[in-house]
């Protein structure tokens, strides 16, 4: 396996997508969507972060060992946040 050199065109495209995402998230923050405001903001942030990880950080063209390391990192973060929230936001269920 030799080094995969990402062409400049791809970097500029990703940069453009990230800028559009930033404008989109500011615009969407002022829409009246109720609880969906938070979901839209986080969905845009996750999309932007994914683009950075895959293209700027070259994970798309890395080995499987690296890919599984990256996925494991975010998976453990999801476990941390998921279990924490399932505790805090269900405490009221018992008090009733």
């Amino acid at each position: 396996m030799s080094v995969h050199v990402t062409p400049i065109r791809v970097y500029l495209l990703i940069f453009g997508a990230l800028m559009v995402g930033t404008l989109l998230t500011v615009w969407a923050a002022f829409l009246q969507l109720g609880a969906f405001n938070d979901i839209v903001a986080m969905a845009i942030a996750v999309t932007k972060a994914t683009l950075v990880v895959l293209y700027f950080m070259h994970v798309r063209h890395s080995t499987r060992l690296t890919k599984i390391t990256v996925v494991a990192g975010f998976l453990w973060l999801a476990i941390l946040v998921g279990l924490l929230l399932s505790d805090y936001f269900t405490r009221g269920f018992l008090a009733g």
Partner: protein
Amino acid sequence: MISDAKPDRQTWGLDHQFDSVDQQRESSFLGMWIFLVTEIMFFGGLFATYIVYRGQNTDGFVAGSHELDITLGAVNTAVLIGSSLTMALAVWAAQTDRRKATVWFILATILLGGVFLGVKVVEYGAKFEHHLVPGPEFHWPGPEKTESVQMFFNLYFLMTGLHALHMIIGIGILAVLAWLAWRGVFSASNHNLVEGVGLYWHFVDIVWIFLFPLLYLLGRSG
């Protein structure tokens, strides 16, 4: 592909503990990612804390968010994304053996990082002026509970402060990297240090991609 003879190893920039250039590169890449996974858990704990406290003090957190300057936050987001682009281009230049371009793109990254920190200083200054820095000087005139709003600013300063610290460290490392690149240390077969520092810089960008909506944008529509 590569013989064990010393001159070849030197030409390829291959350290003695590795068998090939590819193995050396993959070790560097994987090692850096394992460090970044620890960073994900580090910032992740703070994000989790923020979500829990926001759930418990939603009024105070929404009121606190409204005190932040959305324009400065958005401009800084754009500046940081721009610095990620120049960093990615620095790695590209190193991969394709363009010594001077590597140096220039690293310097551009440092410059944009400096602009980000400068804007942050302006924002922090405004918080001091408006008595929004947690501590004895903290004052909240609104109807929301003072402790709730203060908790928002505790987390605001903790999270953006740690993020800024990562950027200051990053700028220091980039300065050394620019000097090494100028001396011609990197080549198409070994530019692993440029790539590794790039990963760190992009990670810091990702942290901000989440900080911006969490701190500045949530609760704006209400």
